[in-house]
């Protein structure tokens, strides 16, 4: 469970986050929608314990991300916009390495390969160097890590930017599957339509504030778009 309580982050005089509060329960997908610079990445970094909140708290399963970063990071998985893997290692080797860092105990070869398969990576690619992977393939390695880590929460930062429609659809299928297994997912994106499709809750962020929180099942795509534009122009 991911809980943000009156989260505030200031960089000097600039307020990157202004009193943000929300909860993501297990089996839910919370999409943060907003333009560049709205504070989505900052929110994710606060949950990872990479930044110290000026006030308020970011908690994972009741543990403060800033005070107990190791505990927190053991429970979640972070997939950034560009999944950074080692180009000279193969997909399999990368997964093995990151699994070891994540202190995953059962790392048998079969299990690793299973995870890669479940993530949708073609078996021929396991032994190929990541330097030759497409962006979609890199993301699948990221998902495989989440599978093998049995992460209880997923933090995704602009996951579908730069992916072609097929890869984007594949990706959403994967995270829906994760959601169904009880993972709490926080996804920062500006893909309005996909967000509406997979999200349980949608949060509209602008200038560090969570302007609106919407139930995804009760809104149509068109309404979402007009609401989004309205919020953006209001705060501009």
């Amino acid at each position, binding site marked *: 469970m991911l809980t943000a309580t009156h989260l505030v982050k200031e960089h000097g005089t600039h307020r990157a986050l202004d009193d943000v509060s929300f909860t993501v329960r297990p089996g839910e997908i919370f999409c943060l929608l907003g333009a560049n610079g709205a504070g989505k990445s900052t929110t994710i970094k606060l949950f990872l314990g*990479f930044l110290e909140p000026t006030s308020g708290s970011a908690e994972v399963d009741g543990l403060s991300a800033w005070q107990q970063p190791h505990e927190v990071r053991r429970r979640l998985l972070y997939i950034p916009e560009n*999944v950074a893997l080692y180009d*000279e*290692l193969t997909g399999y080797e990368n997964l093995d*390495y990151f699994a070891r*860092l994540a202190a*995953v*105990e059962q790392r048998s070869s079969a299990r690793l390969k299973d995870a890669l398969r479940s993530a949708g990576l073609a078996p021929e690619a396991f032994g190929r160097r990541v330097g030759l992977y497409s962006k979609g393939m890199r993301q699948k390695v990221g998902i495989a890590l989440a599978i093998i880590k049995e992460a209880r929460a997923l933090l995704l930062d602009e996951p579908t930017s730069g992916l072609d429609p097929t890869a984007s659809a594949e990706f959403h299928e994967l995270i829906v599957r994760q959601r169904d297994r009880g993972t709490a997912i926080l996804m920062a994106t500006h893909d309005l339509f996909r967000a509406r499709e997979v999200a349980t809750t949608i949060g509209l962020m602008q200038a560090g504030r969570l302007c609106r929180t919407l139930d995804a099942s009760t809104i149509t795509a068109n309404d979402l778009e007009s609401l989004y534009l309205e919020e953006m122009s209001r705060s501009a």
Partner: protein
Amino acid sequence: MSDASPTFSRPASAVRQTLVVAATQLKLMWRERRLLWLALTLLLLAGASVTTGAARLAQQAQERQIVAEQEAGLWDSQGTIDPHAAAHVGRAIPAPVRPLAALDPGITDFVGTSVFIEGHAQNPARHRPVDAGTALSRFDGFSAAWALQVVAPLLIILAGFASLSGDVARETLRQELGSGASAHVLIGGRLIALATASLLLVLALLAVSLPGMVGRTLGTADITALVAMFAAYALYLLVFCAITIGVSARFSAARTSLVVLLGFWVVATLLAPRVAPALAESLYPTPTAPAFRAAVTEDAEHGADGHDPADKRLDALKAEMLARYQVKDVDDLPVNFRGVALEFAEANSTETYNRHFERIYATYQRQAITQRAFAALSPTLALQAASRALARTDFPAQLAFLRGVEDYRYRLIQALNLEVKQHKAANGSKHLADIATLTRSVAYSPQQPPLGHIAAAQSVNFAILLAWVLLALGLVFTSARHLGSAP
């Protein structure tokens, strides 16, 4: 979801994780072919330099052996002559060849390779290898020692500057941190990988150089010295590994890291080793050769304080001897006064020369200590001094040779003078003696200072290297903490 998931057992020990990181980094370095090729090229060149150096040393040793034998032959074949004439004929004593000079030639090319000993004078060493060269002779810097002191740190910097700085590296680091590993593990692992790679480089260099040096017999002292040199170089490269990782962790832009590290490298390995000796010399200058000779001559003629000219002292000696033996004339003395005068003159001039030379050597020592102060800016200075000392190619090693030769010279000349003193000849003629039999008992037995002495003398330099290691590790530690909280 239950809290006790089977995959979340006890966290892997930090040490094991660090080793995992190190192993992966080493694997990456191995697959990064470019740097591997550079390292191999360096090994090849350094190995070639050691092999050719060793061949040159072998040839030099042979040449010196021949010259020593020829000189001995010439000395012994002088036959029966006035012993003092032999003092003017003189003899050349070649310097010993240092086997480890193939690795670190030190100053061997800039010091004389033989000393000409004769009566009434103390000559500096002559026939330096750098004599009679051209512009190209100034470029004789590349040796295995130089490769490890200057080029290996550059390779380390190129291999490691982007390990933690730059967009790609930072992103990967963030992901690794997000996986649950601590910053200390990630950075420590990279440091261990870089240090292991440099250690392998030094070992490979050693392996590549040994066959070239095996031709000459290396005694246990030499092998111990080699091990000590290896330890010193390992410490030195560890300093650079730690500084590289520390700086890379500190700056997020790869360009900044590279500029800072290259700046440090230029100052520490290229500039400081050249500027420090020059500055030390301008602080404690040595006199020019003409000034030195003039001072010695003046001193010997007029006594140390100018009031006690040699003639007067000789006259006093004559008077004292006449009184002692209660005779009126020098011819009535039981000893040959010519011999007495020669003995006195030799003792006088030797003492004068020694005093002046020791002053110069003391100046060199003061210069060396001033240079060591610069090691605060550059670990290379401390390593260079230690490496040369262990290879016996620094000035104290040459000084040991010079002092040994001077001791032999004094004994030899005074043996000749003693012969003159003890034999009175008929009026007008001189006593003749066979030089070979006369001087057979006076032997030149060069003594090398034991390795323990050298190690003790270099303890300060080793301490400086250790201090650098601690400083560099401190940098890594603080950068790691900084990075862990704000990647």
